């Protein structure tokens, strides 16, 4: 708040803009906001997210003529791993930038790079509800999500039918049974893009989610304590599952999203029946069609989704789910208009537009009626009915421990490591932090 006051003191009508986040009339001094997001054009040249953000910025500046918004679209990994860290270090950071929450955001907040939004946007935080939690550290809000959803298993009903599977698996035993039936029918049961690391790691996350109690996982984000035996148990369950050979051959050579031989390509082309993935795969699969309305409709006709099945035993709730989302943070020295614009981005109408234009899953509860696709509705339904949603483990733990964890898990897939190796790698990485 002291900072906000300091900012506005240079602003002739500053008292006005600190009074309420939604104020800032046309009489205010000119302000330029820089905005970095990950909405870039895909292989087809389409960029529905980037286009939508352009529209949102234009709509906002039309109502606030004193504000100019300069947008930079940056590829996700470049943005997260290189551009944002170096920009924050240099002290010349964008005012509003993509924020994935969790351990990385906590480190940025601890270094004092992020604007505290708790008071300025308290009404919006309340309106968005529990989805904001990953963007909070010890009750302080450092960012707001515009999208949040759980992951689950995408599948092709026609291949299930061919293999004689009559219902969606709800337990691991049923999943293993389905895997066997698909193998008997000469169909690759599950595609996994283990070459990229994280898609393989997500299997382990889901086992950990079920074997570890909610607070064990949540506390691990800050304590980096992995002595609970449930972490080892997750790896053992994964080893057992890999032992049933559910994945395509040479899965460590398979990437997640690029090309027909990627895991997404295999499912989209009907060469594999299932894939564990986030809601974004809805659009990734569309990228493998020829782009025509008929082809996309035909794909969705034969594409469905079910939540990750429950495991036997374990301290976690069987209806808990892994999930994650995208949000934005304001840089600590950003003008107050940044918070106001962020509030506009997550407002009910803009969130509704986001669901309609991009097909994303909005965080604002009031915008959920804008989701029309039955599969996306199913995901939204699972997200809201889950006992709790655990943020992606690698995001929760931050790049250092999270990266070591992912590499350790891939070693299980490679046959070069085991369940203990994952825990050891996490403990070693935690000791360097």
């Amino acid at each position, binding site marked *: 708040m002291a900072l906000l006051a300091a900012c506005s003191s240079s602003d002739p009508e500053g008292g006005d803009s600190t009074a309420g986040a939604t104020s800032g009339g046309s009489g205010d001094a000119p302000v330029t906001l820089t905005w970095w997001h990950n909405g870039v054009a895909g292989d087809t040249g389409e960029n529905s997210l980037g286009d939508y953000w352009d529209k949102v910025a234009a709509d906002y500046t039309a109502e606030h003529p004193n504000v100019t918004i300069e947008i930079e679209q940056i590829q996700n990994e470049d943005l997260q*791993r*290189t551009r944002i*860290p170096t920009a*924050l*270090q240099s002290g010349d950071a964008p005012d509003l930038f993509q924020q994935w929450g969790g351990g*990385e955001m906590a*480190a*940025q907040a*601890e*270094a*004092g*790079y992020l604007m505290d939004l708790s008071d300025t946007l308290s009404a919006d935080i309340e309106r968005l509800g529990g989805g904001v939690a990953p963007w909070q550290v010890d009750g302080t809000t450092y960012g707001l999500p515009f999208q949040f959803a759980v992951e689950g298993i995408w599948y092709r009903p026609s291949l299930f039918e061919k293999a004689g599977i009559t219902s969606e698996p709800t337990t691991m035993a049923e999943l293993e049974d389905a895997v066997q039936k698909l193998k008997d029918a000469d169909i690759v049961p599950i595609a996994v893009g*283990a*070459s990229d*690391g994280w898609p393989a790691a997500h299997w382990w996350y889901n086992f950990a989610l079920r074997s570890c109690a909610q607070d064990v996982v949540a506390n691990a984000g800050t304590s980096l304590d992995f002595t609970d035996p449930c972490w080892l148990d997750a790896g053992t369950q994964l080893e057992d599952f890999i032992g049933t050979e559910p994945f395509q*051959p*040479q899965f*460590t*050579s*398979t990437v997640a999203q690029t*090309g027909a*031989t990627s895991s997404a390509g295999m499912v989209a082309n009907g060469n594999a029946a299932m894939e564990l993935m986030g809601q974004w795969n809805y659009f990734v699969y569309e990228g493998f069609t020829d782009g025509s309305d008929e082809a996309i409709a035909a794909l969705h006709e034969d594409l469905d989704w079910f939540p990750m099945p429950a495991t036997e035993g374990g301290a976690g709730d069987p209806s808990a789910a892994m999930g994650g989302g995208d949000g934005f943070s304001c840089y600590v020295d950003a003008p107050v208009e940044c918070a106001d614009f962020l509030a506009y981005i997550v407002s009910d109408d803009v969130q509704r537009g986001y669901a309609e234009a991009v097909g994303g899953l909005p965080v604002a509860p009031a915008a959920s009626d804008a989701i029309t696709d039955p599969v996306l509705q199913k995901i939204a339904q699972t997200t809201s009915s889950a006992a709790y949603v655990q943020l992606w483990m690698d995001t929760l733990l*931050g*790049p*250092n421990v999270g*990266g*070591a964890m992912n590499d350790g898990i*891939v*070693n299980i*897939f*490679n*046959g*070069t*490591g085991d369940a203990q*190796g994952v825990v*050891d*790698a996490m*403990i*070693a*990485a935690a*000791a*360097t*932090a």
Partner: protein
Amino acid sequence: MTALEASGRSASPAVDSSSAAGSRPVTPASEHTRRATARKWAEIALFVGPAMVLFLTFVVYPVVSAARFSLYKWNGVSQFSDAEFIGFENYARALFGGTDPATQQAFTTAYSQPFWEALSHNVAIIFLSMAVQLPIALIVALTLNRRFRGRAFTRVVIFAPYVLSEVIAGTMWLIIFDPNGIATDLMRAVGLDMPAGGWFEDQTWGFWTVFFIITWKYVGLAIILFLAGLSGVSEDLQEAAAIDGASWWQIQWRINIPLIGPTIRIWAFLSIIGSIQLFDMVWVLNRGGTAGQYSTIASYMMEIGFFRSDWGYGSAIAVIMFFLSFVIALAYMATILRRDNAHPRKAR
């Protein structure tokens, strides 16, 4: 090599001008020499200055920064001023798991082993390049060192992989060596199968697949360098030997190869330094492999430094890599390249 040339060139005019000033028999000698000296320094500043500024900004400053970061426990996100000074602990972690008995065992597995594994890949590539690329390049260069139809075209084809961008070449090989790709089909056509874990990810064969690609990519440079060296070998010598009854092989072995010795030694130098710093190709393929099957020190540095946000440790790896290149370059210059560098000075 270029630095050597540059320093050699900038040194010689300086020597010339001072000796010229000294030999001029003008009476107010001190006045003249002072002016000449000032002018000389102005010239040096003018010509060397811009290059020096670039060198200091983009070479010396980053090296010094990396050396500084490498002494701290720093995640690249927090303010560097808050980072904890830990001396040479990052280096110790890479080399032997660190000095703390409580974590040494864990660090050896998690950090030291992958480091040595990456370094062993660099070393293997240095020696394999000598053992594989050198003979291939020599044979091809000697074979092509004559006039025949389509010579220029052949040379372009041979040099093409080297000119291709690493990213394009890497992506091309990723497609070829996809488990369901052309290479697998070809192998199956002759009754063989791809390596069990896939071309790139197999624990044993992954490295060799990558070494094959590296050879394909860089052997063209060696061939072109050797051809350039061969074009400098006087045809008189070859004719004289032929008249004396030397066979084609004898001419190559006793005349051509010894005379392109300096070229071969320079290529070996470039190859060694390139092998130590090898990064682009292994990164494009899949960041050194999911289990580091073909990691190099540079890919390991990038993985840990940037992707795991362990900047202090990553900087220590960078400094180790710089130190290795530096020492090997100096040693190579002082021993193997010494005789090549000695010649022009004697001639002068």
